[in-house]
């Protein structure tokens, strides 16, 4: 019951953030110099054509009316029409979002699967060589520019190893359609298509690791700090005094309360993860939102740009909601006491 209240509160909260985000994006988009209708029609259009399109796009209405219209569209999942592709922005984005989602999901998975054990080990051997080397590694991976790492990995794979593919999500022409969940690896698994699953994973490895490096470092460092914090708590000492074995102490008594911090950090810095995902997608030609986003940005395809930013923001809010739900499950303090 308390948990339900907590969930509802977080959900309402997320909606509020989304609403705020839509205002910010709308204001920025309308505040930009340059006439969107003019840009849409190109330099050869006549003044009449521009005026006509302005009317169709509703640009001649008062700003508040325009915003209400925009919000009404948003509520129905309508992000307007892209000037670049001529399709509805939501169709364009839903075609590309799954790829981004898959990449980000893999990244989060790697961040925890690699970062968590590193952080735990570092905390266990605090101030001794394993700790020092893990800290250095984590710091290095947190501060290595994502674009540099992505480029280096691509060169390594493309010229030296020849083992992993350097572009795309599947071999071009593989003819596999991920029509269940949109995630190639998951759909291949569901359909039992092992060849595609293998290919999907092989294509995923490089971009996911390039993107995950920063998060791995962050998760490892935060886990270490919060494990050390927990280590000095009386309840850990109490467990030790009562003869609870170290393995259980570390993996149960310490790790669980220590999990909240890295999860929260990952949620808060998720926006920069999305930004980096753009860089990684461009370098590895990953067919996600990035290439669409960048192209629409360059074309000043306003509806599409607003859509991409809005969907990225919604993605952020969704992930943070999921993290809230998870931390609420892990740590009763979160759901019982609420979080400021």
């Amino acid at each position: 019951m308390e948990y339900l209240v907590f969930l509802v509160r977080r959900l309402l909260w997320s909606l509020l953030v989304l609403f705020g985000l839509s205002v910010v994006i709308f204001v920025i988009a309308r505040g930009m110099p340059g006439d969107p209708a003019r840009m849409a029609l190109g330099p050869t259009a006549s003044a009449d054509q521009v005026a006509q399109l302005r009317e169709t796009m509703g640009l001649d209405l008062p700003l508040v009316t325009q915003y209400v219209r925009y919000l009404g569209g948003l509520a129905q999942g309508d992000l307007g029409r892209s000037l670049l592709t001529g399709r509805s922005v939501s169709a364009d984005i839903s075609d590309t979002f799954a790829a981004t989602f898959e990449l980000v999901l893999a990244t989060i998975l790697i961040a925890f699967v690699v970062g968590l054990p590193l952080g735990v080990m570092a905390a266990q051997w605090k101030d001794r060589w394993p700790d020092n080397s893990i800290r250095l590694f984590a710091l290095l991976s947190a501060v290595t520019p994502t674009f540099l790492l992505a480029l280096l990995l691509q060169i390594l794979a493309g010229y030296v190893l020849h083992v992993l593919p350097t572009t795309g999500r599947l071999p071009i022409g593989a003819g596999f359609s991920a029509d269940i969940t949109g995630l190639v690896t998951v759909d291949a698994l569901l359909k039992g298509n092992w060849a595609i699953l293998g290919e999907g994973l092989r294509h995923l490895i490089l971009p996911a690791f390039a993107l995950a490096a920063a998060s791995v470092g962050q998760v490892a460092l935060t886990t270490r700090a919060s494990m050390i914090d927990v280590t000095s708590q009386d309840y850990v000492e109490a467990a030790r005094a009562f003869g609870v074995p170290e393995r259980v102490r570390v993996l149960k008594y310490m790790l669980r309360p220590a999990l909240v911090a890295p999860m929260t950090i990952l949620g808060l810095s998720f926006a920069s993860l999305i930004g980096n995902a753009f860089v990684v997608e461009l370098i590895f030609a990953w067919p996600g939102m990035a290439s669409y986003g960048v192209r629409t940005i360059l074309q000043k395809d306003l509806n599409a740009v607003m859509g991409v930013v809005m969907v990225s923001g919604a993605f952020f809010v969704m992930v943070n909601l999921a993290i809230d739900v998870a931390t609420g499950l892990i740590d009763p303090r979160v759901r019982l006491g609420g979080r400021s």
Partner: protein
Amino acid sequence: MTLLSVRDLSVSFTTYGRTTQVLHDVSLDVPACSQIALVGESGSGKSVTMKAIMGLLSTPPARINSGQIFYDGEDLLTMPPARRMALRGTAMSMVFQDPMSSLNPVFTIGDQLGTILKYADRRLGRQRGRAGRRARVAEVLAQVRMREPERVAGSYPMQLSGGMRQRVLIAMALLSEPTLLIADEPGTALDVTTQAQILKLLKDLVEAKDLALLMITHNLGVVRETSSYVYVMHKGRVVEEAPTERLFAAPAEQYTRDLIAAVPRLTGPALTAATGEAARQGGGAP
């Protein structure tokens, strides 16, 4: 018969590149079924002594330079680690000081007590299933006068009051039917009345179960209420020891006299009132 005997224990710490000796030849005895107090101000070394006995000192930075700690005639410091592990938390058990921080906030009370019991059983070779453990946990919770043991077992620490949590900590110490109970200033973090209830509960339990109690405290009022024999520590040394009555009546050391003079009188009526309160709030006796 002496259950616990500390002989000439010296401990030093190395911090910031400097080594400081914090215990100087500390000796004390806890006979079976006796109630002994170790008293001293913050930094006197009483907590270090306690940690050394329980084997909770982190080495480094701590180092035991010399001395022995006998439990039931065996030296804890030289026995095989497995044997010492088997004793810790079972035969010699401990009541933690801070009810706020000594319970893991993310697990239920039942889960925490159950886990401790599970590994105690394993060390002692006892066979007890999940249901058996749950029953034992409820039993111990009832012993510390919890009205609804099952509900308490299903609660998270933050859902309980300070006094209830402190009683959970006592229950934790009683899980494996210890013979020696070391209590580290139980209840100091609570308000005076609740603390008095806790001390009363502890005293009742110790007497009912014929346990030996080593009470570690800075509070001479607590000493007077809970112990029959006192060791006074100052700057890492035991400076005086005496039966409780005699210590209060005729303290030998100037330091002890200062301590007694400095402590506000914890009068009888307060304790009595508190006990009455305990009877009202904590429910009937087990």
